[in-house]
């Protein structure tokens, strides 16, 4: 019996009778799962370090999440389009270095620096898109290769020496507007834009169409290649933006600063309920996934859990999340 049928049977076996036949709309299940998990994680956090569950701390956590959140915007778009972006690590780092090199720590250079950074992101993203769409290179290989090239390129061009960051950017990344951290506001605004764009514009429809069924999309008059290239370009831009802001937060650009974002960004997308094969999901779920990941990471850090155990728990959590998605969501073809 094929695996799909087995999964359905397993579901029926695990869940009590009435529940197993009751299939929630996708959005609802994700929200409920998110609420449940975050309550647990926040509870654990509070137990480990009283004061964790305070509003102030929650806002801090949102600020921390925002960098991964911005990177994940790009990753979400690319995965929705049926691909994956493994180059965000060094696009982020490369863009950050471009920024710090151009601005030389001066506020006056910010605009040019930002343009340089975004140009790096958009450029690499476009190359990724062209390679995947026009040259039919597998996304894994394509983005792996550009990541490698960016790694070498950044090191060669800048010699890797960390540079300072203009005050204005540092203030943006670490400061607040009233009670709300600026980064949280930026992330919230971007989230709103992306969620609305995907759900309500023709561009969003095209993205999902290409990701779900390129043939049907092509026969509907959609330019698959253009949509793909656009998605990868946006991913590059998002990574670049995150790089600039993260450099501001860390008060420097440093080698390897992007490595910590690659796999969590993919994990966030999967946690958020999007299908890794493309065509299904949205950024809203990813944003929730980002928050969960941050909650989990901080919990693990506070619990003084050794790095080894942290990794294990993180990995098991990811597998557990995907498994439960599979079992709870009505036996849809994944």
């Amino acid at each position, binding site marked *: 019996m094929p*695996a799909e049928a087995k*999964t359905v049977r397993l579901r029926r076996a695990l869940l009590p009778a009435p529940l197993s036949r009751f299939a929630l709309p996708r959005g609802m299940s994700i929200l409920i799962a998110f609420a449940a998990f975050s309550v647990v994680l926040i509870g654990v956090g509070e137990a480990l370090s009283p004061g964790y569950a305070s509003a102030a701390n929650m806002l801090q956590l949102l600020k921390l999440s925002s960098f991964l959140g911005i990177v994940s915007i790009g990753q979400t778009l690319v995965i929705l389009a049926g691909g994956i972006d*493994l180059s965000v690590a060094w696009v982020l780092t490369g863009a950050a270095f471009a920024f710090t090199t151009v601005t030389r720590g001066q506020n006056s250079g910010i605009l040019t620096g930002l343009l340089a950074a975004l140009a790096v992101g958009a450029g690499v993203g476009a190359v990724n898109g062209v390679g995947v769409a026009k040259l039919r290179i597998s996304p894994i290989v*394509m983005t792996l290769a550009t990541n*490698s090239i960016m790694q070498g390129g950044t090191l060669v061009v800048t010699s890797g020496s960390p540079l300072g960051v203009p005050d204005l950017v540092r203030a943006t990344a670490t400061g607040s507007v009233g009670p709300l951290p600026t980064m949280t506001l930026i992330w919230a605004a971007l989230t709103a834009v992306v969620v609305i764009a995907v759900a309500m514009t023709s561009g969003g429809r095209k993205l999902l169409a290409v990701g779900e069924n390129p043939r049907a999309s092509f026969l509907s008059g959609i330019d698959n290649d253009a949509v793909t290239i656009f998605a990868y370009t946006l991913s590059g831009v998002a990574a670049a933006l995150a790089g600039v802001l993260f450099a501001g937060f860390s008060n420097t650009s440093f080698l390897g600063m992007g490595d910590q974002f690659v796999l969590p960004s993919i994990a966030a997308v999967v946690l958020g309920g999007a299908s890794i094969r493309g065509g299904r999901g949205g950024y809203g779920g990813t944003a929730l996934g980002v928050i969960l990941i941050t909650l989990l990471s901080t919990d693990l850090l506070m619990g003084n859990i050794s*790095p080894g155990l942290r990794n294990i728990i993180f990995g098991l959590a990811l597998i557990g999340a995907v498994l439960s998605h599979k079992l709870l969501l009505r036996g849809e073809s994944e």
Partner: protein
Amino acid sequence: MRGVWLSRLRLEENWPVLTFVALLLLDVALKGRFSRFDLQTLCANALPLALISFGQFFVVLTGGIDLSLGPISSVAGSCAALLLARDMTTGFAVALLAGAAAGLGNGLLVVRFALPPIVVTLGSMSVWQGVALLILPNPGGEVPPELSDFLSSDYGVPTSLAALALAWLAASWVTSTRFGLHLRAIGDDETAARMSGVAVPRVKTAAYVLAGATAAAGGVTLAIATSSGSPTVGDDYILLSVATVVLGGVSLGGGVGNALGVVMGALIVTIIGSLLYFAHLSSFYQSIINGVILLAVVASPSVRNWIGLQFRRLRHAG
């Protein structure tokens, strides 16, 4: 005239070997020599990558991918570094069993629950990275000097070359069996394979188990070569193993590829590193070159098709 010569070379199938030979000639030309020691070093450096990449090869043949092979090799290497000194048999056995068990975990999740391999192995990658850190928080352990000496010695034929050849033969043997044929069948069309009588769940799970064990062998080799274990040594190999199989002509979509290509891929990557080292180019350049070569290799079918299309258009117009 050129066309005949080119077609005899059968570029389509043989470019991994040809590329390696070209790079080898370049290496010899630059260094002005190719001693037995050079050969031994080349093979010794390529061996761990080849072994881990063989693991990736088996999984990719079925149309999947395994991102956890790097950390699995770290775990195996760490086990080896801790146990080999005490008792060699236990050391080897535990390391290989650990790899097989890890592979079994991957296989069960992918096959029983029909979860996408990339996500499953992303999770298990993290798990095994953690396990490696638990076993050996810092690089250390010790490896019996006899083993390290053995690997770097030369009995008429450098042992590392023999080991590499042995690994290649073993992988070739696997692909020549019915099991190997079934791996390819699953990668070609899983549904058709099932309808044709292939025991898909069993074969697919076995692919992941085999991959884990092979990667573990690679990890043990690394530990012996460096005379110590390290919890993070395998991390580089996560993506490097994917690049190696692609360079070796294996298709990520499944169903296509052979063991010789994988060996060539590993040798190509290794020799590029050695060339750059010799040219005093920092390892930064290695990343760029690896990336460019990877792209050149995967883009070439499309580029060739495009060139062919342009020629055909010109011919029709004329």
